[in-house]
């Protein structure tokens, strides 16, 4: 007995040790999911052509940062009994239920999403807004309406008003992306900041900023100050930054002229992608507006991004200031839209075109080339449209 014991004891011990080591490969049950998002919303209606401006409007993807969902529909659409269907984060539940019928003519309906683990909730307000397509003469952007962002209280955001109700009434900036890299920055250290004493009341200033140690880690060493009509998708700001900027809002007029006033002071040293100085080069700014078809030939929604906003075949007209001459005096610009193709009036009336206005303190900012400190200030921007010719 003793002999056997001797012989096998080491084996038993080794087995025990191996089992302990192997224990690291045993996993518990999958944990309950903790997210509580509405990811997409679909509005099924029997007659989508007469309900939506574009049939593709029936499906919306919701940004993780959004808590207001807006459907802009034709002015004569009946919104008194609609049953939006949601896709939610895995395992999450929503009250009232997905597919339940509500009367959206009485105002927004609030949906509460609860995560699978029950610990997290998000509240969404959904609006379905019958909207008259109005042909605008002139859009005025004076940058007087700004405030600290309500979510993080870290940086400024600017509102604008369109003559019709629109889902986007906030200028898109990359300030939210900058917040991720420089969480400690003060509001006035962000790339896009207000200038209280502008040309006429307040103006807005765009400054190319150093993105600090996180920026270097992410190989995004600078953030050009920018501001544009469109949306910024924080989700892909890190992994696919050129597509994080979706340029354009639906626009039902034919833009003719783009005017405003600016000052521009390039920063002292242009740096390349790796942060190394590029000698004998001066930074340049961007000021342009683009009018484009927001659906392709196959009927899919189109958004212009950082890599094609000036080159896409969807573009109908561009008003580009081109070289922005450095100046410390408020200097006016007045640029005509150069049309590349005819505008289809029917499509125009169905919001089949989008418009973006883009300002950037470093034209190479999309490739992280520019001079830290380059500063473009703008005020009294006008977008003048014509009635049908």
């Amino acid at each position, binding site marked *: 007995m*003793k002999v056997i*014991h*001797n012989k096998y*004891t*080491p084996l038993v*011990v*080794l087995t025990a*040790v191996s089992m*302990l*080591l192997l*224990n*690291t*490969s*045993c*996993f*518990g*049950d*999958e*944990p309950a*999911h*903790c*997210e*509580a*998002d509405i990811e997409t919303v679909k509005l099924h209606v029997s007659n989508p052509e007469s309900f939506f401006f574009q049939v593709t409007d029936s499906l919306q993807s919701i940004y*993780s*940062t959004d808590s207001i969902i807006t459907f802009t529909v034709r002015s004569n659409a009946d919104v008194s009994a609609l049953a939006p269907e949601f896709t939610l984060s895995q395992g999450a539940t929503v009250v009232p239920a997905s597919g339940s019928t509500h009367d959206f003519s009485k105002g927004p309906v609030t949906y509460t999403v609860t*995560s699978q683990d029950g*610990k*997290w*909730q*998000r509240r969404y307000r959904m609006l379905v807004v019958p909207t008259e397509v109005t042909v605008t003469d002139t859009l005025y952007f004076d940058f007087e309406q700004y405030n600290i962002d309500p979510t993080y209280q870290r940086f400024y955001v600017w509102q604008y008003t369109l003559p019709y109700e629109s889902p986007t009434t906030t200028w898109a900036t990359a300030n*939210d992306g900058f917040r*991720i*890299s*420089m*969480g*400690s920055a003060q509001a006035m250290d962000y790339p896009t900041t207000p200038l209280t004493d502008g040309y006429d009341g307040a103006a807005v200033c765009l400054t190319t900023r150093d993105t*600090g*140690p*996180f920026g270097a*880690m*992410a*190989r*995004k060493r600078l953030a050009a100050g920018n501001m544009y009509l469109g949306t910024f998708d*924080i*989700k*892909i*700001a*890190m*992994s*696919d930054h050129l597509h994080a900027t979706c340029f354009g809002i639906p626009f039902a007029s034919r833009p003719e002229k783009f005017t405003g006033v600016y000052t521009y002071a390039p920063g002292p040293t242009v740096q390349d992608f790796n942060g190394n100085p590029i000698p004998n080069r001066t930074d340049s700014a961007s000021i342009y507006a683009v009018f484009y078809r927001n659906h392709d030939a196959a009927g899919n929604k189109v958004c212009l991004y950082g890599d094609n906003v000036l080159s896409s075949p969807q573009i109908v007209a561009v008003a580009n200031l081109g070289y922005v001459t450095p100046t410390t005096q408020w200097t006016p610009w007045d640029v005509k839209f150069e049309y590349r193709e005819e505008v289809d009036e029917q499509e125009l009336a169905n919001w089949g075109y989008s418009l973006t206005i883009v300002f950037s303190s470093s034209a190479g900012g999309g490739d992280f080339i520019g001079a830290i400190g380059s500063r473009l200030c703008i005020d009294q921007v006008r977008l003048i449209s014509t009635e049908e010719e």
Partner: protein
Amino acid sequence: MTTAQRILTITALLATLAMGANASVLDSAKVDVRLGYTVGGTIPTHMGNEIRGINSFDPGLNFAVSAEASLPLSKRWAIHSGLRYELGSMDVDSRVMNYDIEVVRGDESLNGIFMGNVRIKSSQRRISLPIQAEFKASNTCSLRGGLFMGWLASRKFWGWAYDGYLREGTPVGPKIALGTEPGDRGDFEFDKSMRHMQWGIDVGADWQFHRRWGVFAELTYSLSGLFKSNFHSVQTLRPMYGTLGIMYRIK
């Protein structure tokens, strides 16, 4: 230093210590030198269900050398100690869910819940001193159990979160996708947050199959975390080293 030099140095150290002890106790002491292959890793305090799978695991080629001694207290029992020099490294790529992570760079930090893949690489050189009770199960076999104190002579811990997304702050915070390539993913490096000192449980077994030669197995599990207590970038990780090797009795 070569491995042989290390063994000699450590043996000499141990011998010096032993000289101070009572001569009659010393006469009955057993002294050996050991060389082992170590799988040195860090494991979460509880094998949390946040880790959904291991994509790859490379335990590395790590060695441990030591000089160890047993002082008999009775026929069955002895006290066992020694000095060990251990290399530990790990390269593990795992799939995670609801994984708490905080990345700090300079004065800036970013934290949240990550869903995706995490690659962790670590390497340490540890000098440790075990104190164990040894039970002689037979003439050739003994089992040991006790504690160890360790000091990290060098420490590295780095990696990246990739192919997934971070919910910033909380699970309902903004979603930030992380890609796969450098610049698109979230790199981290926590060298400076690692503790120098470790202590924990040490169990082992020896099988003396020859007058001089034997084999041993050792498992140390640190009860102190790998990181300093004010560090919250990743969940508490504890170093665990498993060693298999041969020993040569010199006394």
